């Protein structure tokens, strides 16, 4: 795994020292809030509804056990004994005191972590496929290039005051698990005639104006990648609408100028940036890549796994939902669900973090990943160890067998924490999970992604949920709008609105009716919700939601 160079360590230490002084100056009154706010945001410190919130980057979602232990210690010492893992591969602490934040940042630095560029108009924490380095379907590990981009972008002098935030995601596999088409730049590693390169998508984003990223270049060779990305950011940095923050993201720039014009400008700029790069980036890339070398996998019998699978139905059910194919024989990618029925999606207590860290150290080559779906991944475990791992997880409430099912919901913090929210999201997620667990229907329903946001900023990715739920404020009452048919994968699709929204009391029964309609019209268990929706369209679902008469009326409207 990537380890800080002396330069990185000195850089983070210097930033923390500066921030400590800034906090002191804020407290003693020599900085006003207007002066302090951009500084605290640059260091990941937000003010939410009830308290400050510290957002810590987990670059490309990768952690080792020591780092996870530190996250647990920080939660105990300076927060309320838990942390919230987010769709952006961050961890958020919801209750820090302003005075403690510099100490928290120093504690993070001890394990080479930080909160830099988790906020503000900069190039943000680069996200990557959470199965990176492990997936059977991978062309190449996306993390080395994510780290290369992180190093190039961190404190890049040209890009500290961009028109708006800028998000980059990388997938190394054709099965895009990193939602690359919803990012300002999405990179997809591809192979052409034996050469590794990148398909570069630009202008994706969710939020107020959701847009699907477009392919700007279908093959950028490794040697050209950084100068090419620099050209993209540089073109946008000049064209981006600084006059209006709702029009500042590159998706709007692309929309206003058109992909062909942007491509031409990028090519022009690329001719210049390419001269400025002298090949040092390639040497750096090779050095980084060496640090992401795969662990040495062993060959062992998997009979322990098979025995448990045959004899223990609880284990089997968990193995069926929570495991994915690993590239090494005998291994499995194991997802630990942070979606126990009725719990807050993405939350882990400090005890749970420690249990997970210890399992990773003992059985998982000391590697962990955080998925954008707010679960934790043990990327490399041998199947023979899974019965023991499962038993341990189970005794700490971590063996919920629901990955990819209806209760594996993405939910943003919503109005329980977020100052921008128009409605709550967490309780809706809790109630849906609890309800379908009571009905014992979730395995029958099969693959289904529900994603919930508490306002149009779409931090909960509702646009790309098979069922999306958007919480709004309608005349002082929480109101939930449903979208159907969104898809977060490589061929990304935005969901379509069903019609009028539902109150907090009505939304759970409404979801139940939707699912009832799906079970009625699907062509058997092998047709997942999204496929049924694509086959039959919105009509039966509208009828289920609004009744036959009203469904017709909303269609006419």
């Amino acid at each position, binding site marked *: 795994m990537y380890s800080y160079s002396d330069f990185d360590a000195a850089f983070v230490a210097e930033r923390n020292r500066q921030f400590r002084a800034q906090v002191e100056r804020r407290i003693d009154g020599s900085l006003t809030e207007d002066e302090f706010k951009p500084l605290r945001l640059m260091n990941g410190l937000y003010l939410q509804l*009830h308290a400050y919130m510290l957002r810590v980057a987990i670059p490309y979602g990768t952690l080792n056990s020591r780092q996870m232990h530190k996250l647990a210690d920080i939660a105990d010492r300076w927060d309320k004994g838990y942390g919230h893992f987010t769709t952006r591969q961050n961890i958020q602490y919801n209750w820090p005191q302003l005075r403690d934040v510099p100490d928290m940042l120093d504690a993070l630095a001890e394990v080479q972590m930080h909160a830099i560029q988790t906020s503000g108009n900069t190039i943000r924490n680069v996200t990557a496929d959470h199965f990176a380095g492990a997936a059977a379907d991978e062309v190449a590990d996306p993390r080395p290039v994510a780290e290369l981009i992180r190093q190039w972008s961190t404190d890049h002098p040209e890009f500290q005051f961009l028109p708006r935030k800028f998000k980059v995601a990388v997938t190394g596999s054709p099965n895009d698990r990193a939602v690359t088409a919803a990012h300002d730049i999405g990179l997809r590693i591809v192979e052409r005639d034996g050469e590794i390169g990148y398909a570069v998508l630009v202008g994706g984003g969710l939020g107020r104006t959701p847009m699907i990223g477009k392919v700007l270049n279908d093959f950028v060779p490794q040697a050209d990648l950084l100068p090419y990305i620099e050209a993209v950011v540089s073109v946008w940095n000049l064209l981006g609408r600084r006059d209006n923050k709702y029009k500042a993201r590159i998706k709007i720039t692309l929309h206003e100028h058109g992909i062909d014009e942007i491509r031409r400008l990028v090519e022009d700029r690329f001719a210049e940036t390419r001269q400025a790069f002298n090949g040092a980036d390639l040497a750096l890339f090779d050095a980084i890549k060496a640090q992401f070398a795969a662990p040495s996998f062993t060959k062992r019998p998997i009979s322990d796994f098979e025995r448990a699978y045959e004899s223990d139905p609880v284990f089997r059910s968990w193995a069926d939902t929570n495991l994915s194919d690993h590239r090494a024989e005998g291994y499995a990618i194991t997802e630990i669900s942070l979606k126990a029925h009725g719990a807050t999606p993405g939350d882990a207590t400090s005890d749970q973090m420690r249990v997970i860290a210890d399992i990773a150290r003992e059985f998982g080559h000391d590697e962990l990943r955080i998925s954008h779906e707010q679960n934790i991944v043990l990327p490399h475990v041998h199947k023979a160890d899974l019965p023991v791992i499962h038993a341990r997880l189970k005794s700490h409430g971590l063996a919920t067998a629901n990955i990819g099912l209806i209760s594996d919901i993405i939910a943003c913090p919503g109005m329980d924490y977020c100052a921008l929210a128009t409605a709550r999201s967490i309780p809706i997620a809790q109630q849906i999970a609890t309800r379908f667990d009571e009905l014992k229907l979730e395995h029958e329903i099969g693959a289904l992604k529900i994603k919930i946001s508490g306002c149009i900023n779409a931090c909960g990715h509702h646009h790309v949920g098979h069922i999306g739920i958007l919480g709004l404020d309608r005349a002082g009452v929480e109101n939930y709008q449903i979208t159907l048919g969104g898809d977060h994968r490589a061929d990304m699709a935005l969901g379509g609105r069903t019609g009028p929204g539902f109150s907090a009391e009505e939304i759970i029964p409404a979801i139940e009716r939707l699912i009832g309609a799906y079970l009625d019209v699907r062509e058997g268990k092998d047709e997942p919700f999204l496929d049924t929706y694509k086959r039959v369209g919105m009509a039966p679902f509208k009828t289920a939601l609004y009744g036959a008469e009203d469904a017709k009326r909303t269609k006419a409207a």
Partner: protein
Amino acid sequence: MPKPFTPKVITANALLSGEVVYLTADDRWSPHLSDADLLTDEADAQVRLLDAEKRSHEVVGVYLVDMVPGADGPEPTHFREAFRRTGPSNYAHGKQAELKRSA
């Protein structure tokens, strides 16, 4: 015609803890909405707001917000303020924990 002025309180977050606070009649910051001064005069409210905004060494994000008089002091008219006065709904954290302890 201008809209008639509706009663309001002044609220903010405490600088050090981030906790929600309300301005009292004697210009203290209280964590309890029941202690807040319900302002019924628009001119008074504006002056108090300007003064409160100057106290940036104590609080962050000062604003005026609608409330109605209740049996135990001002009551929120909007659910956002109801959450601010209580805490999150997924855990008994924040004010509701403090209130339970002192009850």
